[in-house]
């Protein structure tokens, strides 16, 4: 087990290096001169050259990459061109907000999805199964920004239960989390249902029944642990997607998160901030996948991704 985890962690190193190279290249592959941008449209060529020199933009690419990566490792993500402040100061608080939003939404997705999926599978073709699957299809098909708007209309404006916008205090997180987590819950519910149905018809479930095991124990102990593997995979991917894709929800609820920062920075061509955001999202995504891989091993000892 420990060996498995260590090997999985070591395998992250090349992945992260690759990610950093891609992120670094972004700046050089996109059109537009950052020095020109910083100096302004009408700046004289001398000033631009001076800025290029001070940013090291005339150095060979490997040197620039080395400067970049050694900075990143020390927590220096560069300087924002817009605000002329360290990027880390700019990105960090917003990353925390988006991370919270993503974590709460994923928890909601997993909890609701598992519960609905299990009920559906255990009572296949019953009224509750059909209802759950229709609701899930609805949840899956609704764009989350639209759902967000509807939630604001009903629960914030009409009923006044929750604040319509912002990210302060426990009340304010309810609507954004529901709006972001619903699609994930729907996907996980459908995944759990089909996975459970598959497992319930296996021979070892019959063996458990022949031993006199209670139905509830069969479902939650014998069946669920086997059915969880595809569910965990989906939940991991879901989390990554939320992190990168929360921008619409953040806009609807006026939450000052990383999604909004990223979009604003792209529009403003604030490359260091864009780089930092993408790097953070990529690293978190990779780490979530590591957690998923490790949890496979807990669920089924037979799985060995190192082979």
């Amino acid at each position: 087990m420990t060996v498995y985890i260590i090997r999985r962690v070591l395998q992250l190193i090349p992945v992260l290096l690759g990610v950093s190279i891609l992120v670094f290249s972004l700046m050089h592959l996109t059109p537009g001169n950052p020095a020109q941008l910083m100096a302004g449209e009408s700046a004289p060529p001398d000033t631009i050259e001076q800025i290029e020199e001070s940013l090291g933009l005339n150095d060979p690419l490997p040197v620039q990459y080395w400067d970049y990566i050694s900075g990143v490792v020390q927590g220096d993500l560069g300087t924002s061109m817009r605000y002329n402040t360290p990027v880390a100061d700019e990105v960090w608080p917003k990353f925390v907000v988006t991370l919270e939003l993503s974590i709460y939404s994923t928890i909601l997705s997993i909890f609701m999805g598992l519960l609905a999926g299990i009920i559906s599978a255990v009572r296949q073709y019953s009224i509750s199964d059909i209802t759950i699957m229709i609701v899930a299809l609805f949840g899956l098909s609704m764009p989350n920004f639209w759902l967000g708007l509807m939630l604001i209309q009903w629960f914030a404006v009409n009923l006044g239960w929750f604040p319509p916008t912002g990210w302060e205090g426990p009340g304010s997180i309810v609507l954004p989390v529901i709006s972001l987590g619903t699609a994930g819950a729907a996907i996980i519910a459908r995944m759990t249902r089909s996975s459970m149905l598959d497992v319930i018809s296996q021979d070892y479930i019959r063996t458990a029944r022949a031993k006199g095991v209670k139905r509830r124990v069969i479902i939650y102990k014998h069946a669920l642990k086997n059915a969880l593997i595809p569910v965990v995979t989906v939940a991991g991917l879901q989390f990554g997607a939320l992190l990168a894709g929360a921008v619409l929800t953040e806009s609807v609820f006026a939450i000052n998160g990383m999604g909004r920062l990223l979009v604003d920075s792209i529009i403003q061509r604030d490359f260091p901030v864009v780089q930092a955001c993408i790097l953070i999202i990529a690293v978190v995504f990779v780490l979530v996948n590591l957690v998923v891989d490790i949890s496979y091993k807990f669920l089924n000892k037979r799985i060995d991704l190192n082979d």
Partner: protein
Amino acid sequence: MSQETILEVNDLRTSFFVEGNEVKAVDGVTFDVPKGKTLGIVGESGSGKSISALSILQLIDSPGEIVGGEINFKGDNLLKYNDNQMRKIRGNQISMIFQEPMTSLNPVYTVGQQLREALKIHRGLGKEAGTEKAVELLELVGIPSPRSRVTQYPFELSGGMRQRVMIAMALACDPELLVADEPTTALDVTIQAQILELLKELQDEFNMSIIMITHDLGVVAETCDYVAVMYCGKVVEYADVHTLFKNPRHPYTVGLLNSLPRSDMDQEELEPIRGTVPAPHEMPVGCRFAPRCPFATDLCHEKLPELEDVGDEEQVRCWIYTDEWDGDPEVKVYEPEARTAKD
């Protein structure tokens, strides 16, 4: 019956309801299991033998349903039991082992965890006592270094070892009846013999009764004391194993024996039963075997015979052995000498 019986199955009916049609998988099956003995249930695929076995423990899944009959275990009709009462029987007084050892163990729990489960449910054994008992059981079924196996997962064991684990699990609570549904079909021939030998030893040791479901007459000859031959959801012949092999009465039983290769006779070729098992929706009205039977008369095609006593402990479902028989009164259903054709 001259001896004590542990299980009496009377007129058991299990049907599957598919798209409004009733498929009678088990259609009025009757047999007894004498205490401490082995009853073999033999038949082709689809004869209803496995469904009969699953019905005993009420492990039939929807759309299947037990629609009638009695399953008397030590005098109590199990079909009257509710789910809770039934759970106390399963894995405790009646255990079951299955055909596929590769898929019958839960892949995500250790051998020990799975062995302890029945011990906890029926005997209230905790983790430590359960583990001790599990080691004991693994030793009993002939698994080498049992203590280290307890923490292993099923995928670390071979098919034969897994079937031994299944048997250990089934024996955990000293059952009085073991239902073995084709326990050796999926195993290599050498392993088959070992498993059958093991079951016999354990039976002698614990005075356990066994129902051995199989399609293999070789397994029957080796392990069973009594045999029920099933065809299309019905028992067509019941006899003790010696009588069945020496003097089979039902033409279907004879057909099964004739299609078996024998080393003690010089045969040119095997004689298969002609035709195929009828599909469930086109069951013949008369004797189910009539369309394939070389002796069938008009009576056989028109009326279904009953399972009649033809000897002390022998029953057969065939018109030939009744007063109503309208064919050749001298008909010889089984002629062992006919098989020694070649010089």
